[in-house]
């Protein structure tokens, strides 16, 4: 089974290799290269990216204009850290995002703050720094598009996007 799964991952890699970004698992925001809900593996397999994305949770949310990690966020990041320590072949890019109620440049910087807060937390739990990169999409890639707090709350996020190969930047 393990061999089968690895083959499936490699197939996924080949499919995504046509994209300009590194292969990645999860929704991401990187210009359409994410695999969305079709991330590799099975949600019941604890070593699969799908398990990471859906069962552990690939994202944490923030309150307005902050990069403070909430208790709920910490619980998710504990799970992410454990998974990354167990599955050492994976790297991650942590993508910071902001809601639309801010200026473009500031939101890019704020997203970086959020992504970095997640990285610092994961590193504090033993995940090697060199496996984690941070970026920010500011307000450019909302997941919820209404102009109300119910949507803004989902957009103020940091998403840990797994990848299987060495990153380029």
């Amino acid at each position, binding site marked *: 089974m393990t061999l089968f799964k690895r083959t499936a991952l490699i197939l996924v890699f080949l499919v995504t290799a046509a994209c*300009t*970004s*590194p292969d990645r698992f999860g929704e991401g925001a*990187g*210009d*359409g290269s994410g695999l969305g809900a079709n991330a590799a593996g099975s949600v019941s397999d604890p070593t699969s990216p799908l398990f990471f994305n859906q069962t552990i949770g690939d994202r944490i949310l923030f309150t307005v*204009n902050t*990069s403070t990690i909430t208790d709920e966020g910490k619980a998710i990041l504990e799970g992410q850290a454990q998974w990354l320590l167990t599955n050492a072949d994976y790297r991650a*890019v942590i993508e910071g995002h902001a809601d*639309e*109620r*801010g*200026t*473009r*440049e*500031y939101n*890019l*910087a*704020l997203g*970086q*703050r959020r*992504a*970095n*807060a997640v990285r*610092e937390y994961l590193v504090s739990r033993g995940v090697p720094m060199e496996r984690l*990169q*941070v*970026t*920010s*999409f500011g307000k*450019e*890639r*909302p*997941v*919820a*598009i*209404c*102009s109300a707090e119910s949507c803004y709350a989902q957009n103020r996020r940091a998403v840990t996007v797994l990848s299987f190969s060495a990153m*380029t*930047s």
Partner: protein
Amino acid sequence: MMKRLLTLLVALILTGPVLAQGTPLRITITDGVIEPITFAVPSFEAESPAAQQAAADISRLVVQDLAGTGLFREVPATAFISQIRSFAQPVSFADWRAINAQALIVGAVTVNGDQLTVKFRLYDVFSGQELGQGLQFAGTTAGWRRMGHKVADAVYGRITGEGGFFDSRVVFVSESGPKDNRQKRLAIMDFDGANVQFLTDSSSIVLAPRFSPNGDRVLYTSFSSGFPRINLLNVANVGRQQLQTAPGEMAFSPRFSPDGRQVIYSLSNGGNTDIYRTDLATGQHMRLTSAPSIETAPSLSPDGTQIVFESDRSGGQQLYIMSSNGGEARRISFGAGRYGTPVWSPRGDMVAFTKQNAGRFHIGVMRIDGSEERLLTSSFLDEGPTWSPNGRVILFSRETQGASGTSAMYSVDISGRNLKAVPIRGGASDPSWGPLQP
């Protein structure tokens, strides 16, 4: 009638032939309500049959440019008593006075192959005098709009005593698609939305292009690597390269120095965003801020000695000014709410900014000491002002609310008057207004 025109806010000096030394026809642009100058543009004379279309088009464009400022009001051709059939024909001023046209613009167009020549004269109808000398511009038939803009710039300049802005271009981000999968491409257009051309495709997000001072290059932020990086694009051949910034996880919010030789920008590392400067020729970097807060959106003064930027070092976003070499910064914004995206005015005396307060976004201007703050607009989301070459008009992005919200470019006078959308197809954001073209 003379008294009506000579209001407090309009300095309209009509001198007789004996006192012909001053400027007879003059509008002084102030912050208050302005009584527009009335003008007539009889369709320019076509000096050959091939020039007829261009003559008609150019005349209409001159009218559109001048009337579009709100400082001038057209007297329509249906009101004309006399016709101008020849550029050389003497003007019967009484006929133009009778329809209350204060300014009369007479022109002629010649087409020779793909070469186009436009000449014009501007008359002060009430003094019966020509204002300035007749002028002639030459170009190509394909570039007829530029010829029209040049005539309008000359008229605007002679009547206001200030530089124009019609023969200029704007680089911006063209947008399409839904909010959660918005496609963004770099594009360039004439100031009035004509001649849109794309400079990049939409394969990766591009943000906030900024013209070089002479309009030959554009700096912008690209996500082509998945990480924000600054690119430098050559407008003439659309060649582009990544700017070698100081080392950092993200680089964005670039602007040129007034001499075009340096770039100031933001660099993020470990959650901290600071302002840096890189010399394009030597590749040398200089870090200008080092606070643990967010410092971004830097803009240099026209003399290159100071930088206005935004920082949240006090808690929320506020505007600060520091030396172009960094060091101590002084805060200039103190009103309610948050202030961002400051841009130094071409004359050096003002800063335009985005303000967020009580759930609304505003474009505003203030003097560089922070006094005389004035909000020009108010909407769900206005942001990112850019100045016209003469510092009289501001372009910015306005995004509408909701799941189907879209972005468009708007212009507004620094008086807060004459707010209007730039008429182009599709969504648009992040305008950067280039210089008057040579």
